[in-house]
């Protein structure tokens, strides 16, 4: 699964894009965040406030309970400030 990071989530993690291979018991967006947050200080910092970070699965807004099955791309980013 490809992961993309934007804005200060990207800066905190230190990369814009990477390939992820989470264990089989990671089934949801929320589960993936928990797994990522344990991968190092940079990830822990990016996800320190899980209420704030948003996610999209295959370019569609997702929620913590969104299932990852079949997902090819997941993105994490702060609240949007376009418009």
């Amino acid at each position, binding site marked *: 699964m490809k992961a*993309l990071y*934007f*804005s*200060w989530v990207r800066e905190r993690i230190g990369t814009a894009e990477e390939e992820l291979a989470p264990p089989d018991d990671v089934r949801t967006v929320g589960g993936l965040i928990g797994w990522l947050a344990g991968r190092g200080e940079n990830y822990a910092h990016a996800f320190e406030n899980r209420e704030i970070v948003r996610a*999209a699965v295959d*370019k*569609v*807004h997702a929620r913590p309970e969104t299932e990852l099955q079949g997902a090819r791309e997941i*993105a994490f*980013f*702060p*609240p*949007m*400030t*376009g*418009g």
Partner: protein
Amino acid sequence: MAQVTVQAEDFDAAAEIEAATRGRTDIGAVVTFSGRCRGDDGLAALDIEHYPGMADAEILRVAAKAEARWPLQACRVIHRYGAIGPGQNIVFVLTASAHRSDAFAAADFLMDFLKTRAPFWKRNRHVDGSAGEWVAPKSKDDVATRRWT
């Protein structure tokens, strides 16, 4: 069917109005919104990051909601990314309808939802050349979005 473009280049509001209305006699009302970069203290530019592929797809989803809710003869959205200086355009919305209330409501709705759902992130660049803070989302934008539910 809405037309959505995500681009670095500036847009031409006049050309968009012309394209949306040329030869049409069923349009009674055209509303346009242009969002511009303000030159607040010490701001050299806004650097606008976006999520390619999702930005246009999400704006199309928002536009489809507007088209389902109001009878629109035209619906056009342009959102820019990259470095945008004070006085320059950021975003453009055009709605056309038989009646003005529908065109106004749809344009207002589109802007509210673009602010909170379109994957763009603004960062201030200071006049001394340094990259400044990421622009914080406004809680009033969420409040504005909830008007429509």
